[in-house]
């Protein structure tokens, strides 16, 4: 620290110029940053679930759908049908949309020219009421159409847009959203939500960042009462945010729902180091040693600031072990940003301070409410540490008991409030149709064998009987229809063809009519067939239940059956979130423990700090459990932030205690002194952090709102414990040890 402070005070200008020019460089890089919300980007490329998902897209075409629903009085009225027809044509023309399946273009198996023909269910729009009524009866009585292209009450119609797996689904969705501007027409499905998410998240950020900037400025002003006190910490966070975004842009990384919170995190957390430096500088300068104040400041708090920063960095870096790609990138780049903020605070701010005549505050800080409260807290803690320990542990324990109730959620729909359009469209499709997300089962074998076909049929029946999906569709349904069509439409023949040859001959006829029709049901060599079913409940609990049942069903059937689909990816993601959380939590705690040990050179300090933050984290998870808040792609970040940042308060307090001890104070006095001296900075720091994260309450996304409140909760808890439980534990620890002489415990600050 001494060498560093000498270096800074000698060449402040060089430092300023270097930092500013680097900032310009990174600012150029930051302009390259784009946004992705594609769920596949969350997985490593060679993840088995992604491979399985891509394999089915390869064999059968896309499994990703955009669902467009039209709502009206009666789908079968000419006007509604004309709308559906126009939408079908318009949407099919969008590049990246492979196929559109709607009431006006759904194929029907008919016996015609070259054998059987796949012709349109709707040849022409009905000309009068009677024709409309006939069509209505024909469609609603057929379970192939009712509940899939038309709702069973005939009020809604659904257009299923199958997307080209080669295209970026999110971009296609954006084009689809542009193409529909009629009232009563809604779009939903994962790509649509992804697209809206990308758009709304940008809007959200643009709204939140000025708010958080304003709030931090206010907190800083209240704390320092001067312009420099606001300006310098601010400059720190702005520089670090620019550098981080620049680093992302330069390395070709993208923003995601997960790391979209990063700028706010950097702005909120990054200013703390500056606060500590400036706060101490005020002290030193007001003691009349202005010229040596910079050096003195760094010597006094440089180590503590470094410690606070490195633990925060360690907390974020602990995410780098996650198997979720975005999580790793978030961890890495946020850690990078914090490191920049730390470096700027330790080098750039002192450099500015030695260049510019920064006015320092009057030494009238000892009055006011805060110091009084701190004094009382200090007195209470020193007098009866036992009580403090019991009360705080009890509070933490009760909260932590909620932890087993914790659930996970990887569903993108939860990003939208119930009263927003994407969510309403999703609920509408879920209610009136089977759902907007598909479950895909791929059966391997000699598919055309009646035995295999029967096995697929029974698997479908069993799947439908679980009540968790809509009617499953496969090649079996197609063959049954052809069988009926070629037996004069006799419903008795709506059955599996009696022989392999018959099935093969039916398929030959279908291929002769439309070579592409079968590709979504069966592979060219007839060795794999796909069963597709729309999933009704895509909540994490719903999916867990579904996959448990599907696994049981497929285990009963002979032959190899693979399960995939977007829902499977969501389910896998939930599992990865939990696993990642546990690993990063443990690693974070170990890293923090070692860092604090190294920096404070005290087992006691590092043990107590780690214990405290573990307690705060447990309390937060418990709180989530009690409140029914799920761990999702955003709230999953709280523990790494909680550990990395929350530990700072304990570290500050403990280093205050150490400082007092080296000045010769007895343990009990040192504890009191630490609370009084460091308390204000801890509270100021925590207030700024809490305030910053509470800004997320203004987000339009529920997970971000939860995230903000939860981090605030952790910070509040960690700061409170560091001012109460931590000193109480230190005091209690020293009381238990034999002492050489009694000292006055009622030392004042």
């Amino acid at each position, binding site marked *: 620290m001494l060498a560093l402070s000498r270096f800074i005070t000698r060449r402040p200008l060089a430092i300023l110029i270097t930092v500013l020019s680097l900032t310009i460089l990174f600012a150029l890089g930051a302009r390259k940053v784009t946004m992705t919300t594609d769920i596949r980007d969350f997985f490593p490329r060679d993840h088995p679930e992604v491979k399985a998902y891509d394999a089915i897209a390869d064999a059968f075409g896309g499994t990703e759908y955009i669902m467009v629903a039209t709502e009206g009085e009666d789908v079968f009225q000419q006007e509604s049908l004309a709308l559906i027809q126009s939408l079908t044509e318009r949407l099919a023309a969008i590049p990246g949309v492979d196929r559109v399946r709607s009431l006006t273009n759904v194929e029907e198996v008919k016996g015609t020219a070259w054998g059987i023909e796949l012709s349109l269910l709707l040849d022409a729009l009905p000309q009068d009421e009677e024709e409309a009524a006939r069509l209505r009866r024909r469609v609603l009585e057929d379970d192939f159409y009712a509940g899939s292209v038309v709702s069973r009450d005939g009020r809604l119609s659904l257009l299923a847009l199958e997307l080209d797996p080669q295209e970026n689904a999110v971009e296609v969705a954006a084009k689809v959203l542009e193409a529909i501007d009629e009232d009563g027409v809604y779009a939903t499905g994962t790509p649509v939500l992804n697209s809206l998410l990308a758009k709304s998240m940008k809007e959200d950020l643009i709204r939140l960042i000025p708010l958080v900037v304003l709030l931090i400025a206010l907190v800083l002003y209240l704390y320092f009462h001067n312009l420099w006190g606001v300006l310098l910490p601010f400059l720190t966070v702005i520089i670090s945010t620019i550098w981080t975004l620049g680093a992302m842009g330069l390395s070709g990384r993208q923003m995601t729902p997960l790391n979209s919170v990063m700028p706010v995190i950097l702005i909120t957390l990054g200013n703390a180091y500056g606060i500590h430096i400036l706060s101490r500088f005020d002290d030193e300068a007001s003691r009349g040693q202005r010229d040596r104040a910079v050096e003195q400041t760094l010597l006094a708090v440089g180590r503590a600031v470094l410690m606070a920063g490195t633990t925060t960095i360690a907390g974020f870096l602990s995410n780098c072990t996650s198997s979720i790609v975005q999580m790793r990138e978030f961890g890495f780049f946020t850690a990078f940003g914090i490191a920049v903020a730390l470096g700027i605070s330790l080098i750039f701010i002192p450099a500015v301070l030695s260049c510019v005549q920064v006015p320092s505050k009057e030494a009238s800080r000892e009055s006011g409410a805060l110091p009084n409260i701190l004094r009382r807290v200090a007195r209470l803690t020193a007098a009866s540490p036992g009580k403090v320990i019991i009360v705080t542990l009890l509070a933490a324990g009760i909260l932590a008991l909620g932890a087993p109730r914790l659930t996970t959620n990887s569903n993108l729909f939860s990003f939208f409030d119930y009263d927003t359009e994407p969510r309403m469209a999703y609920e509408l499709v879920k209610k009136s149709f089977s759902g907007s997300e598909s479950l895909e089962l791929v059966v391997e074998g000699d598919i055309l064998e009646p035995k295999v076909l029967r096995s697929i049929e029974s698997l479908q029946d069993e799947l439908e009987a679980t009540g968790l999906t809509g009617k499953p569709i496969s090649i079996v349904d197609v063959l049954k229809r052809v069988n009926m069509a070629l037996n004069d439409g006799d419903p008795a023949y709506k059955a599996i063809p009696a022989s392999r040859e018959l099935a093969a001959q039916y398929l030959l006829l279908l291929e002769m009519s439309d070579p592409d029709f079968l590709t979504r049901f069966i592979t*060219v060599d007839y060795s794999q067939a796909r069963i597709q079913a729309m999933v009704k409940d895509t909540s994490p609990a719903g999916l867990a239940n579904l996959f448990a049942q599907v696994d049981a069903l497929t285990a009963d059937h002979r032959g190899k059956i693979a399960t995939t689909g977007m829902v499977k990816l969501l389910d896998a993601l939930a599992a990865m979130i939990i696993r990642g959380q546990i690993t990063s939590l443990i690693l974070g705690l170990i890293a923090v423990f070692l860092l604090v040990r190294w920096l404070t050179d005290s087992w006691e300090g590092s043990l107590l700090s780690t214990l405290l933050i573990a307690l705060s984290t447990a309390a937060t998870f418990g709180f989530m459990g009690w409140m029914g808040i799920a761990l999702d792609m955003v709230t999953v970040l709280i523990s790494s932030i909680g550990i990395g940042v929350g530990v700072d308060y304990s570290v500050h307090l403990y280093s205050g205690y150490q400082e007092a001890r080296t000045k010769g104070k007895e343990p009990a006095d040192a504890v009191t002194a630490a609370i009084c001296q460091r308390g204000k900075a801890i509270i100021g720091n925590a207030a700024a952090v809490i305030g910053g994260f509470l800004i997320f309450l203004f987000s339009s996304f529920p997970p971000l709102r939860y995230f903000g409140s939860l981090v605030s909760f952790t910070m509040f808890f960690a700061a409170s414990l560091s001012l109460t439980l931590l000193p109480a534990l230190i005091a209690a620890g020293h009381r238990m040890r034999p002492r050489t002489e009694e000292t006055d415990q009622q030392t004042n600050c």
Partner: protein
Amino acid sequence: MKRLFVFGLLLLLASSNAGASGDGILARLDETMQSSSREVVQQMTLINAKGQERTRQIQMWSSRGETDRMLVRFLAPADVAGTGLLSVGDDMWLYLPALGRVRRIAGHAKKGSFMGTDLSYEDMEELGRTGFAAGYRSELIRTEKESYLLRLTPRGQDRGYRHLEMQVCRERFLPLRIEYYAPDGSLAKVLTTMAFTEVQGRPTAGKLVMEDVVKGSKTILEQLKVDFEPDIDDDIFSTRYLERGR
């Protein structure tokens, strides 16, 4: 004398032009390819955009007359062997051996794909029974060393193409390459022919490849047997024969 020379020159020009007019070339091409009856055994390889292949063999008898008649029967793969289609004029019958009976089918869909290949029913007819001259006016664009380049414009509105560009072999009067342009003027399909042989003194292409440029799929037709003007028993074009399967 001078006038005579000019006249002679004009005559020469006119005659060479007549010898190689677009319509004339097209007429010779049709003459080479058409026959009043024919028997073909053909292997069809269908390759989709993903490169997945499917192979089938068919045997086809056709006869032109007062009513056009055609019988198509599948020879391979084994599980569809015997499947047959009979068309007599506008009437059609289908036979699936596994179903065990002949089914009469109403209507006539000539717009669709021929047997699921990348050739339309009309593409197929033009290359065999009907020829091109009936449906297209032809214009000679260029004469090259080995081939003529023709531009074919439909005579009526009912053709699915805006125009065709056809490269015709000068020696054999067979199409070497045909580009089919969609109504919007974009290239839709490309046919190339190869493996030329002589059958019964008539030049013929042993292999045709049709590529659908838009879909990315491809069909390869290999002639395993061609018989021009065979003596076809009229009984062949009957439902009774259709039902005999193989």
